[in-house]
Every structure is written in structure tokens, then in C-alpha cells.
């Protein structure tokens, strides 16, 4: 993968992955400078911490001068602490043999914000005077972001010894006459090819995987705390999922690519920094404020100071969850509102009950006095009154009795609204027959044709539906009182795909212009003289129909009868 490749700086060698170490055979100072100067030049220019362990015949001074010559801005690198030139004795004294020196430089590289460590060092004889040389620290190289070149003194090896060294390295740089050559061990080549194939596979996986993948290096602040991170490599899916283009962000800090990310609630820099510095992988789901999307993220650290993330976009799922949560909250609010409304309604109902009680008791009592004492005057003092006086008292009595009826009507109406509906199957035809029989019994002298459709049953409150039919049939009976061939009909029609019951008569009828007023309490379209009544009957009918979730309406014509329709739910 590209993000793992470093420029070697040496023309004979390709880019190298982190963890590589190779060797060079030298004879002269020039041999060393020839290869090591461009090697470190590339390292310095690629943001790597460079450590050059010098050995005879090179002094630290020689090295410094050579680098100054090759790099015009060498001083800047030196001031930044990006290069350390250290004599081999000191290197060994500080743990060069055990690999401790390498690890401490790796830590320094990470905390100073470098991509990794580039090392050049001599191979040392295992014992004083021994012919067996070792590149000390090479095991540490393989575990971290390190590239290392180990220099072997050519003259200390015979052909067999030389081949032995070459075999242990991926490749070796050897000067043959005036030309440098790369000797690659066949073993190493096989491994390299296999590695290349596996890398190719990995590369293909990397580009084609549906999860976004990105590789980063953390940037630490003065106190060594992660404060930013750099994009080193991203795959196609990452570009697609974030909308960030690799060419725009590679090598850039995230605070540049996504300004404001340091203030994001999800604390991306903090979370990733922890992964990179502790090496403990993390998995989390977070919302990115700058990208306005939700991601499921796995982060791990292949090397200290570096981290890789795989991410998938879970915005749709999260939004779905949010929408559901919102809907649930909304329903909860509605329920609470409903509960409050019900409570208010029930308290209003209680007030109404108290009011009805007052009306029933306090308004009727004085009426009884008015009527009763008027009667007393009529009985005890009737002989002292003239006809007008008697008539006036009779009117007083009639009016107070009528008011008593109105109050009773009003109370019944309010009771209809308050009483609980008890639903059951009701035989409306049977009910109509009962009511008709009662009507005939009350006025046996009238000849009225009553037609009732048979077998009409429906769901509803038996008591309320009885009151409803009683009112409608009673009205029809009453308003046909002055026609010759009085006829009442109760039946059902199909209207708008539902059952609409009707009560029809050929009586007094009404003017359709007043149809809207019919169902209002105390609205009467006929004189009390012509037809008695309180004006509460149709209001009662309407209330009963509404309590059943139905509709009621009327059709009529003055003098040509009326039809009242109602539906039940």
C-alpha cells in the first residue's frame, strides 16, 4: 500500500516499506558518503527523524559537512531536531546493541510529529575481534516505522562471509570496481515476490472494499497530547463516504481538511489520538458535525503515533432511529396532551353536573311556588277576580309549567351527553313497532298509516336509540296531526355506500331554508299553538346520533312532509 512506502533516495533501490533494513559494503569514506548522503536527504525531505551513527573512517564532522553541501537548508533540519549524528561508541553506550536506542528514537519521532525513523548504522562484530558481524537493533526495525541501513566493512569479509551477509538481507549494496550493484538473495527475492503479490491483493482489497479506509499520523502538541492528525492514505470508499478527495487531503491536517473538527462533540482527534498512542483499538458510532453524517468507525494502530480507520456510513439507520425516537416523543406528548384534555373534560363534566343539579333544583323550586300560589289564588279568591284576572293567572301557571318542561328538556339533553354509551345489537324495527303502538294508544282517535321496514338491526346504545326513534316518530306523528291521510314510514336507504335510516311523514314539513336551524336546542319552526313542543327533541336526536359517530340531516318542503335521515357507526 502506498502509504507504507518510503523513498530510499538511492537510485538503485525502489521505494521501501517501513520495517525494511538492508546493507551496504564499504571500503572508503567515499563509499559511505556516496550512498548515505542521498539516503538521509530523502529521509529529511520526507519528514522522517534521521539518525546517522558514524563510524571510522567517518567523523560526525565529515558527515555534517557532506550533508550541508547536499542540502542547502540542512541547518533548518538540524535546528528542528530532525537529524542526529552520533558516533558509534556513544550509540552502543546508549543501548545500540539491545535495540533500546532504536525504540527511544521511534518514540521521539512519534512525539515530534515525524512519520518515522531513518537509521544508518554500522554492523558490529559480535565480540571484540570476532569475524561474525551483526546489525544490532534490526529486530526493532521490523516492528516500527523504521528504515535502517547497516554498513559492513568490505575488507573484513571473505567471499563466503560476504555471501552469508547478503543472504540475511533483502538486498545488499556492493561496489564492483566503480559501479554500485544490488545483490538480492534468491530467498529474499522469493519473499519479495510473494509479498508483492499479497500487497497487490491487499491493494485491490483496499481500493474495492465497501468500507472507507484511511491511514493517519497523529500530530502532538507541545505537551505530547494529540491535537491533530494527518491524512496519509485513503481509499475510494473513504472518498465516497466522506466526500473528501484524496488528492485534496493527503499530507494535510484534518483541521485544514475539515475546519472546526477540533470542536466536534464526537472528539475525533481525542479518540483517534488515544488509539494511536496506546495501541488499543476502538470501535464507536459517532456523528460528524463537519460532514453532517453518522459513521460506524473501527480504529487501530499499526505503529505508535499512527492509526488506520475503517468506517461505514450509518446515517440512514441513525436518522431512522432519530425519526422513530422523535415520533415516539411526539406520541408521548400527544398522549400527555390527550390525558390533560381528558382530565379537563372530566372536570368540565363535573362542573356541568353540578350546574345541572343547581338548575334542576334551584330553578324548578321557584316555578313550583309561582304555579302553586297562582293556583291558590284561583281556588281561594277566584270569585273576587274578573275574567281577565283569572286568565292572567292561568297564563302565569301555563308559562311556569312550560318553563318546567324546558328545564327538564335541557337536563335530559345534558344527561344524554354525559351518560356512558353501552353498545349492543339493537332491533330498530321492533323498537319502532313499540313506539308506534304507544303513539296509537295515546291518541286512539287518529287514523295514521305506519309503515315499518322489517329486520332492521344495528349496533348501538339501546336506551339512546329508543329516545332517538321516539323523538323522530313522535315528531312525525305530531306534524301529521292536521293532514287527512297521515302516513309515517321508517326504513333504510343506501347512501354513500352506507346505511342511512329514515323517518318520513306527509305532514306539515318545513322550509328547507331553515333546515340548518332544525337541530339547535329551542329552535322551533312551528307555532306552539299549531304544534306543542319544547324545541329540544331534534337537538336530542342530533346528540344521540353524534354520540354514535353518525350523521343526521333532514329534507322537507312546507306542507309536503319531511324526511329525517340518520346514520350510525
Amino acid at each position, binding site marked *: 500500500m502506498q502509504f507504507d512506502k518510503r523513498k530510499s533516495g538511492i537510485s538503485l533501490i525502489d521505494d521501501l516499506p517501513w520495517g525494511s533494513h538492508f546493507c551496504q559494503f564499504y571500503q572508503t569514506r567515499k563509499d559511505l558518503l556516496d550512498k548515505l548522503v542521498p539516503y538521509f536527504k530523502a529521509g529529511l525531505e520526507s519528514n522522517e527523524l534521521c539518525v546517522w551513527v558514524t563510524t571510522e573512517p567517518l567523523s560526525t564532522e565529515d558527515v555534517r559537512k557532506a550533508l550541508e553541501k547536499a542540502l542547502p537548508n540542512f541547518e533548518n533540519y538540524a535546528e528542528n531536531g530532525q537529524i542526529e549524528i552520533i558516533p558509534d561508541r556513544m550509540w552502543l553506550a546508549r543501548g545500540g546493541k539491545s535495540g533500546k536506542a532504536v525504540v527511544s528514537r521511534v518514540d521521539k519521532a512519534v512525539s515530534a510529529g515525524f512519520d518515522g525513523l531513518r537509521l544508518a548504522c554500522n554492523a558490529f562484530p559480535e565480540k571484540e575481534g570476532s569475524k561474525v558481524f551483526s546489525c544490532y537493533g534490526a529486530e526493532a526495525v521490523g516492528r516500527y516505522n523504521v528504515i535502517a541501513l547497516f554498513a559492513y566493512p568490505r575488507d573484513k569479509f571473505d567471499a563466503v562471509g560476504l555471501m552469508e551477509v547478503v543472504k540475511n538481507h533483502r538486498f545488499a549494496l556492493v561496489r564492483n570496481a566503480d559501479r554500485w550493484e544490488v545483490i538480492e538473495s534468491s530467498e529474499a527475492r522469493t519473499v519479495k515476490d510473494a509479498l508483492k503479490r499479497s500487497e497487490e491483493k491487499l491493494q485491490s482489497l483496499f481500493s474495492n472494499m465497501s468500507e472507507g479506509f484511511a491511514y493517519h499520523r497523529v500530530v502532538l502538541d507541545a505537551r505530547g497530547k494529540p491535537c491533530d492528525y494527518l491524512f496519509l492514505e485513503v481509499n475510494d470508499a473513504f472518498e465516497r463516504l466522506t466526500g473528501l478527495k484524496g488528492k485534496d487531503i493527503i499530507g494535510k491536517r484534518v483541521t485544514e481538511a475539515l475546519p472546526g473538527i477540533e470542536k466536534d462533540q464526537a472528539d475525533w482527534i481525542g479518540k483517534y489520538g488515544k488509539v494511536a498512542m496506546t495501541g488499543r483499538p476502538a470501535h464507536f458510532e459517532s456523528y460528524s458535525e463537519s460532514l453532517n453524517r453518522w459513521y460506524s468507525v473501527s480504529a487501530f494502530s499499526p505503529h505508535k503515533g499512527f492509526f488506520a480507520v475503517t468506517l461505514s456510513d450509518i446515517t440512514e439507520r441513525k436518522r431512522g432511529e432519530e425519526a422513530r425516537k422523535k415520533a415516539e416523543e411526539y406520541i408521548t406528548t400527544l398522549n400527555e396532551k390527550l390525558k390533560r384534555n381528558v382530565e379537563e373534560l372530566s372536570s368540565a363534566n363535573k362542573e356541568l353536573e353540578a350546574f345541572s343539579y343547581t338548575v334542576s*333544583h334551584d330553578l324548578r*323550586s321557584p316555578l*313550583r311556588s309561582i304555579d*302553586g300560589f297562582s293556583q291558590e289564588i284561583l281556588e281561594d279568591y277566584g270569585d273576587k277576580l274578573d275574567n281577565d284576572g283569572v286568565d292572567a293567572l292561568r297564563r302565569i301557571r301555563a308559562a*311556569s309549567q312550560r318553563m318546567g318542561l324546558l328545564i327538564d328538556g335541557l337536563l335530559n339533553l345534558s344527561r344524554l351527553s354525559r351518560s356512558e354509551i353501552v353498545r349492543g345489537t339493537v332491533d330498530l324495527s321492533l323498537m319502532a313497532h313499540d313506539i308506534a303502538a304507544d303513539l296509537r294508544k295515546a291518541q286512539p282517535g287518529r287514523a295514521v298509516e305506519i309503515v315499518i321496514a322489517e329486520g332492521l338491526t344495528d349496533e348501538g346504545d339501546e336506551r339512546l336509540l329508543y329516545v332517538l326513534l321516539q323523538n323522530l316518530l313522535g315528531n312525525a306523528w305530531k306534524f301529521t296531526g292536521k293532514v287527512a291521510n297521515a302516513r309515517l314510514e321508517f326504513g333504510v336507504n343506501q347512501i354513500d355506500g352506507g346505511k342511512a335510516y329514515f323517518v318520513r311523514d306527509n305532514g306539515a314539513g318545513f322550509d328547507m331554508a331553515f333546515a340548518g336551524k332544525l337541530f339547535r336546542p329551542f329552535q322551533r319552526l312551528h307555532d306552539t299553538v299549531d304544534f306543542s313542543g319544547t324545541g329540544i327533541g331534534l337537538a336530542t336526536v342530533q346528540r344521540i346520533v353524534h354520540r354514535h359517530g353518525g350523521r343526521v340531516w333532514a329534507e322537507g318542503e312546507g306542507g309536503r312532509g319531511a324526511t329525517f335521515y340518520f346514520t350510525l357507526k
Partner: protein
Amino acid sequence: MKNKVILLVEDNPDDVKLTLRALKKNNIVNEVIVANDGTKALDYLFGDGEYAGRDTSKTPQVILLDLNMPRVGGIEVLQRMRADERTKLLPVVVLTTSIEDADRVESYRLGANSYVRKPVDFDQFAKAVQQLGLYWLLLNEAP
């Protein structure tokens, strides 16, 4: 029968007058004791207060009891009567303006013998009183 009294518990003087008139009109000449609130009614029944020392074994033939009265209401009077051995079985006719279901149900639950709603129309009222008198004073055998 004539020496049996009727106890009328009624706070409204109009209603008292009208009830007495209705009784008279129907030739019911029994003595009528009027208690214009619940306390007085209980005093009469149990021989307390202004009726201290009254022979409480002489019980009314029937009690006509209004419900809505200040201080001690009809429901409480009924309750206290039914809780006491001396008045437990006395016939009580609730005579009220109220048509509230709750009042009716409560009255019967507490042991009222009848529940009659006072009609506005005096003729009807007189008729009701006549029927009550006929039943409770003539037909009904006291316990």
C-alpha cells in the same frame, strides 16, 4: 289513624305551605310536624333540643323528607335514622326537586321507602300528595 302525625322535613317555606295545602285539599287532616332543617327533624325523632323529653315512642306515620337543605341534609337524616333502632323502620318518602340519578340511587341505598319528584304543576303535585297520603296513611301497615 288521625292521631298519627306526619313529619314534614322541608326548608323552603313555599314548599311547606304548598305541601300543607295539598294535604288539606286531599282531606288529610293528620297533624303535620314541620322541621325546617335536618337538625330539627333529628331532634324531633330522638327527643333532643327543643323536643327534649318528648315521648319518642310516638313515631310519625310517615316522614316526608326533602334532600337539599342547609347544614344537615336529607341524605344525612336518612342515614342517621336508619342507623338507630328507634327509627330504623319508619317509612320515609323522599320528596325532592332533584332528578339526579345519584340522589335517587343514594336515597334507595340508604333505605328510603319511596322517591317522589315534586312536579312544577301544582295540580300534579296535589295529586302526588294525595296518592302518598292514601298509601302511607291508609293502606300501609306500619311495621
